[in-house]
């Protein structure tokens, strides 16, 4: 696993990612890893330009999320598009192929896409509200995604 020069660990876990576009309309590949959202195993994209865990509505449907725990009917600006939905906290598990898996309580946004806005994207892990309290690194040679906590800071 990755270490600092002084022997402290940078990352506690690592997994391999898929590297490909996530929709028919785009050519830019994304880093896609396997995670658990509230215990349901799913794919999620590492999106350092985004905010929150934007949860695939189809996955959210399986979670039986209590609306009472949510901030309802907010609109979120996602990459320049305003999408209605709700905000709540969820437990996100970064699954490690080696090392240790990490559970983080993050802010999640569950879109309620409008009829004209077809949602066929996986979940997105943004920086603000989701990945911002983790260390992470990418090795494109092995398609490895390393992640760790800031516990020793």
């Amino acid at each position, binding site marked *: 696993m990755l270490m600092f020069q002084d022997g402290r660990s940078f990352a506690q876990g690592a997994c391999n990612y898929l590297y490909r*576009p996530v929709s028919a309309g785009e050519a830019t590949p994304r880093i896609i890893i396997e995670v658990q959202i509230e215990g349901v*195993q799913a*794919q999620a994209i590492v999106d350092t330009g985004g905010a929150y865990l934007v949860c695939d509505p189809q996955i959210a449907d399986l979670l039986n999320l209590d609306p009472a725990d949510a901030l309802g009917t*907010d609109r979120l600006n996602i990459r320049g598009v305003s999408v209605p939905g709700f905000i709540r906290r969820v437990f996100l598990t970064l*699954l490690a192929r080696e090392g240790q898996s990490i*559970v983080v309580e993050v*802010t999640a946004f569950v879109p309620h896409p409008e009829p004209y806005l077809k949602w066929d994207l996986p979940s997105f892990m943004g920086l603000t509200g989701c990945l911002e*309290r983790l260390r992470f690194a990418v090795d494109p040679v092995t398609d490895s995604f390393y992640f760790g*906590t800031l516990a020793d800071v």
Partner: protein
Amino acid sequence: MDARLLNSYAGEDVFPIPGDATAPEMLDPAWRDLAMADSTTIVWIILPVVEIRGRRSPSPVVATGPSEASISPAVLDATEDRGDGMALLEIAAETGDEIAFVQAASEIDWPRRSAAEFARAVRLALAAGAHLLARTLAARGARLYTDHQELRKMARLLAPPRIVRADLPPDPSIQANRAWLQAHTNEYRGQWVALRSGQLLAVGSTAQELKAQLENIEGVLLARVL
């Protein structure tokens, strides 16, 4: 500040349509007086994706593009600002202008704002894409108004992420799932698949369909093949 911020909007290409039947004076006769009384009054016609409750014009407007033909414009007028800066926040949120939103918010005297205004500003910040500011406003509002349930909830939901556990064992099966997805992309692209340790358990057109086919989804990857 207001004029500067307003001028920055005026400089943007946000669909000013001179002579257009949807011009604000056609919608609201009161606007004419306001405009004449204040030469710096600026009115925008904005075609947002976001909805402005109770502010829709009654009829569709000229289209600025095929996808916008059915969206009614919102007419936002700087004269609606009561001097507390909230109207500027609304305008910035409607246009999804994070920079203008942050600038406008920085000039508001927040300690004088009510709990409801804090809560409104948090929602507007989310709409503007100013996510860190939304967190800051929620936390600040919750500290000022400790009994305000909505602000407390906002502060909790928008708080920084929290590591809950960092000692869970690895799950080597995720390697096998990834290998399956790499190998079978062309066969199943666009479909939902259920995988356990690289074994295909079910195929469907939605995640709910997969769940209906499985007794238990614990440890099962539910993925749309990309």
